């Protein structure tokens, strides 16, 4: 019996011994249930379309749009200031370890990597017959456009940056020169111009995608960075632009919620509301599906007030310029946005005003017992409720979304309003600068007049002259053609996404000199007691007048990027 059991034991063991060998090969082949391989993913055209959609997606980031591009375009000009954690912008104190820098840098390269990967997948799926040629062309054009546009903002912000043009990279590419990057932008836009659809050909379901016109617009701007004003004019004068894009008749409609994707817009980042507009909505889910314009509204209305204006910008608008009220509002100013007025009747309609105008009259009543309908009053400017300094002036260009209430009322904080990166008025101003540069002052004046006439609702004054200096002094007419263009950039485009880029593009030192001319800046890094106007009460209210230092018109390469790519050389003065 023992022997019998022993034999069984041996047989069992041998069987057991062999089992792991027998299943070994397949035993080590496991299937990933989370994600799919390239071959398994791109089997239908819509999957390649989805891959390209993900490139656009990188711009649906409020950190990239607001804290990166918008902050650079506006805070460096001193037209606008930050309230909150990022006040280092206000005196050019950004260091290489500033936390928002990698948001910009990293997001930009994620978009570029997605574009590079998409170009390879498009080529592969086109070759495999999965993607029809027409669609493949459009998608390729979109990938080139988005890559080029991203390099445009990278080089505009940092100067030369590394050029990553292939999906496979170790990420150790050194910086190219600024010119090389803008040459790459031109190259990408050239390809995009050939591959994209005209806005007239774009299906209604594809509105928001890159178009031929947008490619010409960015190509022209890139040519200007390269000093190739003739080439820029060729791009700007392409019929695709001159025929299919127009200024909206009324400046107030620029940036209106009801005028998204208008005839004036070349390219705007699309947003929409999906679900809640409060903290538990799109913001909570990555901040990709909602926008945050009300963060810049007065804290008295929104509960935020994270950015605010320089009174000097308000004073600079020439008499009769309708753009002022649609751009910056101060004590006693009402809102002119048709959308806001239609929805709320103006400021007086917001719940926080209705709820508090009797109990807190200094803040929320008009001084006569009625709900306030202005951005504070001359007696009680809206400096904010929390004691941190604000000027009492706010961005009315970004106070357009009637669905928002701020952190009051329904707590509709996040909206779905698109953000315009490039519009036709800027093309006209760009053209004017090119014409100045190439000696065609007459042409330049004509293009300026087109923009200015709209700003005056008909005919602009023949003489260009600011109303007052920042400290309430009389001004002189602006007669130098280039200075005229720069002044128009400021009054037309401030609080959007391009002003500082356009000023820096004009040449070394131009921006610093221009800002100093407008604001009388000094080396002081402290906020000043404002000398003029309703807020001149002998106290500080968050206005700095620091001269833009040498080399600080571009930002430092983030330390996190240098740490992971030692081939990157930091910008001077950082």
């Amino acid at each position, binding site marked *: 019996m023992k022997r019998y059991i022993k034999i069984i034991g041996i047989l069992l063991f041998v069987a057991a011994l062999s089992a792991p060998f027998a*299943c070994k090969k397949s035993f080590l082949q496991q299937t990933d249930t989370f994600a799919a391989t390239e071959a398994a993913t*791109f089997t239908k055209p819509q999957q390649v*379309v989805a891959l390209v959609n993900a490139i656009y997606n990188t711009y649906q980031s409020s950190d990239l749009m607001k804290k990166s591009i918008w902050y650079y375009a506006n805070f460096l000009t001193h037209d606008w200031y930050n309230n909150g*954690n990022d006040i*280092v912008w206000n005196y050019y104190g950004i260091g290489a370890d500033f936390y928002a820098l990698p948001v910009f840098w990293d997001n930009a390269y994620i978009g570029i990597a*997605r574009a590079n990967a998409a170009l390879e997948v498009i080529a592969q799926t086109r070759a495999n017959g999965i993607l029809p040629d027409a669609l493949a062309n459009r998608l390729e054009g979109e990938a080139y456009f988005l890559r080029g546009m991203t390099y445009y903002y990278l080089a505009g912000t940092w100067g030369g940056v590394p050029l990553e043009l292939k999906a496979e990279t170790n990420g150790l590419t050194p910086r190219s020169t600024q010119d090389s990057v803008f040459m790459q932008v031109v190259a990408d836009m050239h390809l995009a111009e050939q591959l994209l659809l005209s806005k007239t050909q774009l299906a209604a379901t594809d509105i928001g995608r890159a178009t031929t016109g947008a490619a010409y617009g960015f190509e022209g701007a890139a040519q200007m960075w390269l000093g190739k004003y003739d080439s820029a004019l060729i791009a700007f004068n392409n019929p695709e632009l001159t025929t299919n894009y127009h200024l909206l008749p009324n400046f107030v409609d620029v940036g209106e919620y009801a005028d998204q994707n208008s005839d004036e817009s070349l390219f705007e980042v699309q947003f929409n509301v999906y679900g809640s507009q409060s903290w538990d909505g799109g913001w909570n889910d990555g901040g990709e599906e909602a926008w945050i314009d009300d963060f810049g509204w007065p804290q008295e209305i929104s509960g935020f007030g994270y950015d605010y204006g320089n009174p000097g910008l308000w004073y600079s608008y020439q008499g009769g310029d309708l753009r002022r009220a649609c751009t910056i509002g101060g004590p006693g100013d009402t809102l002119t946005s048709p959308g806001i007025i239609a929805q709320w009747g103006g400021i007086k309609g917001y719940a926080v005003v209705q709820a508090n105008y009797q109990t807190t009259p200094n803040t929320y009543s008009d001084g006569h017992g009625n709900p306030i309908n202005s951005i504070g009053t001359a007696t009680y400017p809206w400096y904010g409720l929390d004691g*941190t300094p604000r000027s009492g002036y706010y961005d009315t260009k970004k106070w357009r979304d009637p669905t928002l209430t701020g952190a009051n009322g329904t707590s509709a904080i996040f909206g779905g309003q698109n953000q315009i990166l490039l519009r036709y008025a800027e093309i006209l101003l760009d053209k004017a600068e090119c014409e100045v540069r190439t000696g065609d002052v007459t042409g330049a004046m004509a293009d300026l007049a087109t923009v200015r006439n709209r700003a005056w609702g008909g005919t602009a004054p023949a003489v260009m002259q600011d109303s007052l200096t920042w400290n309430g002094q009389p001004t002189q007419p602006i007669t130098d053609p280039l200075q005229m263009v720069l002044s128009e950039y400021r009054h037309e485009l401030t609080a959007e996404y391009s002003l500082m880029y356009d000023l820096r593009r004009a040449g070394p030192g131009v921006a610093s000199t221009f800002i100093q001319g407008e604001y009388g800046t000094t080396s002081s890094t402290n906020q000043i007691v404002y000398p003029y106007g309703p807020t001149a009460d002998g106290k500080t209210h968050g206005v700095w007048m620091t001269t833009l230092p040498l080399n600080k018109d571009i930002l430092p390469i983030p330390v996190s990027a240098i740490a992971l790519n030692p081939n990157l050389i930091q910008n001077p003065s950082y």
Partner: protein
Amino acid sequence: MTHLRNLFPPAFLLLFVLSLLCCTNAVFGQSRLITGKVVANENDSTLPGTTVSVKGKKINTVSGRDGAFSLSVPPNSVLVFSSIGYVSQEIPVNNNSTFSVRLVSNQLGLQQVVVIGYGTTKRKDLTGAVSSVSADQIEKFPVTTLEQAMQGRAAGVQVTQNDASPGGNINVLIRGTGSLANNGNVPLYVIDGYPLETGGINNINPNDIATLDILKDASATAIYGIRAANGVVIITTKKGRKGGVQVTLDGYDAFQSRPKEYKILNAFQFGTLANQVAAASNGNFQSFSAWANPSALHNVDWQNGLYRPGLSQNYNMAIRGGSDKVQEATSIGYYNQKGIVQGAYFKRLTFSTNLDYQPAKWLRSSTSLKYSRQDQNVPFGSNGSNNLLALSELPPTMDSGNAATTQIYDGHGNYGFFNPIYTYVAKYSNPLFSINTNRYQNLNNFFLLSSSLEVTLYDGLRIKTNAGITYSGYNGYYFSPEDDRLVNQYGAAAGATQNASYSQSINSNFDWLWENTLSYDHTFGKHTINFVAGVTAQKNQYNSMAGSGIPPNNTIMDLAQSTAVVFTTGQNGQTISSLASEFGRLNYNYDERYFITGTLRRDGSSKFDEGHQYGVFPSGAVKWHAKNESFLKNVYWLDDLSFRGSYGLVGNSQTIAPFQYLALYAAGTGPNVAPSYGYTFGEPKTFAPGIYSTQPANPDLKWETDYQTDIGMDAAFLQGTLRLTGDWFNRRSKDFLLTIPASPQTGYSFLTENVGSMVNKGVELAIAYNHTVSSGFTWGANFTLTTVYNRLLSITSGTTQLPNFGNPLTTIPGDGWNPFSITKPGQPVGEFYGYKSLGIFQSQSQIDALNATAVAKGFAAYQKTITQPGDRYFADVNGDGTVNATDEIALGSPLPKFFTGLNLDATYGAWDFNAYFYGSYGNKIFNFAESSLESFQNRNFVGVENISVNYLNNAWTPENHSNTFARVTSNDDAIGSNVASSAYVEDGSYLKLKNLTVGYTFPGRLADRASLARLRIYVSTQNLFTITKYKGLDPEIGYQGGNATQNGVDNGTYPSSRFYTVGLNVAFK
């Protein structure tokens, strides 16, 4: 069964025994027959064959199978008990007639059985570097995890408690840091033969452990191949003994004192400071109107309100016994710790059964079953990355907050809150409100079952099949009720009502193992061979599901009021990994003088691409047992001497998740579910889905390889009472696997790569001394010392240095404090990194002079354009004229030059004594807590926070020109004084008395009266004192988040405090 009625609760039992003690007044005669029983101290198993002799006489006997003995002795005799592998013991007879003798194992005794992979050997035959810890040592003082049991007892093993939270994480490093990956340095734990792939070892009750054998060099670990690079800890749990049944009861209650507290400002000091800072801020900061009169403020002591005395209770009951054929050991344990922070607790129920059955001499089966259920809550987080520091930083007043109370809690349902309008405090919340009103659950279940069948085919030739499963499951939820208190009082200006929220997650990890081995042991003449070979397969499957959302009715205050939570986000997943391996080991020795061991393992892992799945891990070792040479045999003062040497390769693949080698794409989620990766197009706007690349392909990915060299020696003196083991090791880790922050230019945040090489080399020394003094007095000392020299040798991914990965230290702001460590070639891993502080700027002229130079060189300023006297002065290390990121330098290493443990044991009659010291020398600590308490600003945010009294009293002012503390400001982010710098790097060396225990074992006759084989009571204290220069609360600081690049940062983690323990060990007859 009659004995079971004695299973009283410990307190009653103790009273019972003490009453027996009090009423006993025996009278004893002159000459007689004595009887007794000898058992092993570590597991109460009987010790047959123990020689019992009368000192100085030729009177002796040998204990029987059940350990019992009887002997006729003359008056005034002294009995000598000696047994192989145990420390001899002398006991005077006096008037006693029965003896219950416990012999202590000689830990490093040559006959000690050491468990190695897939077999055992005797220490005298061991060729590799193996440290052992016995149950006897573990039971010296109360521990709740086996990591604590290892601390300081095994040379080469560095054990650091990351924080003192209940059930908190403990870091174990065997021979240094070989990997930079998160949890990449965790040893392989093998429980009763099962290599653990899931579930932490804190599921194992230390009371169930018979031995811990720690395999350190490649010769010892190579049998575990691709999982062995960080060493292997083999845990053998207690088994039943032959010849009887023994029931034991062990329990203790430990009272934990309140922790040390940071000395911070009270409301008056804080309000006064806020007003002063506001006055000097040029309008940048405006103090709160409610603080205008600081003397009227109501003080809130957050530390006092949230800290409390702790209490730990630990009870274990075991029944162990058996016959010749069947041995069984069953135990049940319960541990309950109420933490020293409100809401913190850890509860663990453990169950263990071992069953051994030998129906015939040639057939044997063993089954091990372990179950554990854990319930844990640590409100402020654990694992070294909690934010308890934030408690001390909360403003010490909530005036003008809740109208109902200005205090943390008024006892009537009202919790204070901060004013929601004043921005500088609006973000803060009352943590006790959250702790008491939120609902949460964190349950873990762990199950291990393994069973083996072994057949002896022929003398020495055995086959064995072993199969088992482990399962660990987590089930947790978190519910936060709606909070409308602020809105109700302050209206819309306070923001929106905080919605109720709910999240739930479950995950499970199932693992199975099947392995078959063939072994052969034979001695022929002077030749002895031992051979084992086998095949093994192991598969692990992890599943998880999680969801979060809000209850449909947002007005509910309690989860019980809603049965239909709407989940707005969710995630799930599954990963499977498998391992198929073959292995073999051959030991040969000649005449017990010359030993040689060869080991080979071939592992196949599913984590790698085809062509890279299989790795071969060979090792070899030699040993010369010099004492057995003829020229040393008669050297009387030398009881043992041997020399060892080994070299081998082992691997590490535990650090990466499966499928890291594949290029993968994923579809984004819907429009309002992150991450969407889609976009909005069209009129009307319509969401269009997106697809994105989650990772690029890396088909060359492979395991980490460790090349380990070990040279060691073992020696014994003084009849074996003094033993010395020394090892020199050199561990070179190559191709370490890392999911590394990628250059942003790649478009990926992280990439998994084989990125470099690292070396750890050092010396381990273990000295054990046991001495039996006459009159029943024995004492011993066990000393370990380890040095580890760690350097990164290269990074192969192209970058030159690696910052700390991520920033899980939740209170460390990114601005100016990240990175805080840099690892680069030639330097130790996780070396601190930042600016070199030169003190404090004392005058404007000093700043102006430096600025002038900076401007001349094209910079705006030397440091900042806003720098003022009183700001911290940093060194321009590279001499370019300005201080910027390129001036950051290495500031010191968190790695100690050496760490050491010293155990002192003594028994005197019925009394026993243990003192255990643990120390670390030469390590630095980055005192982020100090930095935080030197910042009036809530850095990286708008807000003010509390500071230390020391800082307030010593900060730079125009009147007090401190060169150590910067001026107090409301905007440290902008000024930049309070960034990672040498100002916060301190010497972290310490020597801590971890334990002090005094025990009393009642004499046999008293135990007899209670039908007890043993009754011991003890009192113990832990963390009684620490000798250190470190200025923080506790210098014992380990990894944060299991990450070697975030080591030694004092983030004000869950504090440790003293335990005062009363315990009882009872063994029933």
